[in-house]
């Protein structure tokens, strides 16, 4: 099992291959549907005006995300009233919804890894080759267990998106993931998809 500390260098990324189990430590940022849409519209395509608050968040996020990873996660967080935030449950959410945005976001912020579940498509796989970066698969549903590896909540951006959709800055220790898409154009998801399609075709051809 490889142990990696964020931020990650290009050489380390290129050393990662599909199937590698990894334990991640360091500072990362959560972001899902609203966050990706916001980053694309406000900072990358600039089709929406940025508020003063957005601009502050942008400057911070550029530093935080550089060389780090973004985690597709909508956590359960305690301490909302006192702002003494703690992650209670924090498993991955389905990543494919960010497929239209992910590659552009990765390249814009120099994000080295995307954590989520279910894998992503061609565009993100290309993004992984260009950036370079990888897709880390976390265990869907393992929310209490993963929350335990979140040692600190350092801050939050766009809280008005709601708790699940906000961008949480977290420090993690030994966060367990598996590389399922690497920077060499390999995707475990493509392989499983193709193999299962072949088996399905055989099953469909069988008499009842």
């Amino acid at each position, binding site marked *: 099992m490889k142990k990696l500390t964020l931020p990650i260098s290009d050489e380390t990324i290129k050393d990662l291959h599909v*199937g590698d*189990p990894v334990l991640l430590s360091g500072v990362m940022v959560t972001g899902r549907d609203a966050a990706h849409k916001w980053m694309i519209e406000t900072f990358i395509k600039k089709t929406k005006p940025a508020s003063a608050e957005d601009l502050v968040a942008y400057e911070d996020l550029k530093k935080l995300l550089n060389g780090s990873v973004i985690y597709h*996660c*909508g*956590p*359960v*967080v*305690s301490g909302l009233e006192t702002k003494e935030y703690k992650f*209670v*449950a*924090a*498993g991955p*959410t*389905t990543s*494919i919804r960010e497929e239209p945005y992910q590659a552009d976001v990765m390249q814009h912020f120099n994000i080295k890894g995307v954590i989520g*579940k*279910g*894998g992503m498509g061609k565009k993100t796989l290309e993004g992984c080759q260009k950036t370079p970066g990888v897709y880390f*698969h976390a*265990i*869907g*549903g*393992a*929310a*209490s*267990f*993963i*929350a*335990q590896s979140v040692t600190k909540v350092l801050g939050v951006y766009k809280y008005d998106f*709601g*708790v*699940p*959709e906000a961008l949480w800055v977290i420090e993690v220790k030994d966060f*367990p993931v*598996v590389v*399922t898409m690497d920077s060499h154009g390999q995707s*475990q*998801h493509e*392989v*499983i*998809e193709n*193999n*299962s*399609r072949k*088996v*399905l075709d055989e*099953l*469909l051809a069988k008499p*009842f």
Partner: protein
Amino acid sequence: MQIDITEQMLELIRLTSTNLPPDVEEKILEARERETEGSAAKGAFDTILKNVALSRKQSTPICQDTGTPIFYVYYPEGWSTIKLRAQIRNAMVEATKKNYMRPNAVDAVYDKNSGNNLGGDDFPSIHFEEVEGSTLTIELMLKGGGCENVGAQYSLPDSRLGAGRDLAGVRKVVLDAVQKAQGQGCAPGILGVAIGGDRGTSYAKSKEVLYDKLGTRNADEKLAALEERLTDEANTLGIGPMGFGGKTTVIDTKIVGLHRLPASFYVSVSYMCWAYRRRKLVIDGNSITYS
């Protein structure tokens, strides 16, 4: 006599969200044994089982997506459903404050999270059914969004799959749904299948059938055989836990047969993720039991 059950409802929600039912855990343990040592699949099951133990011990949600809460309330004659509904909704607000539930109700038009798991009259979803006798039974299922998204409804005949209006056709579309889902619904999954009905009842029944215990078979022989066959065949697809590849893609299949219109033949597949959270509360006089 009707009593205030807000407190019991809160306990039912806590239990459902944080404590995986034993029949599900047992099946996951069995699935783990079948995977090869050192494989990503076995690793996934290990993490799942650690998570189940931890969430039970800490009373924290098994999964952060605490899902759509679906209640089935079987109430004795004379109980007010207005009061029951209000008590369930109050308990839901309380459970959200206590972090047993994530704020999960988002207004689809104004894109705003209500923050307390209440949204209009339909969130949480509550079904009432009057029963004979004096026992109040409430079943709760938390149905996650990831697995809900990979559910599917087919209208037979389906020429792309060569699926006609018979059980052979049903088999084909269900296998297609599992292949399409890949690991997206947090495989391994449990399939709820309804054959017949209209679009609405068909989907509703495909979820209702998931309240049954795992491993029990439909009383109808043909459907019982199809349940077993679908589970076995789905497991030859090799999708495995999380879509990592592996021997267990589907843990169990539950089928319900309905009546349909001569013109329609729907097959609805509800995919339930491994985090199969469903619990039951029974109140009879002074006796209160959770299972």
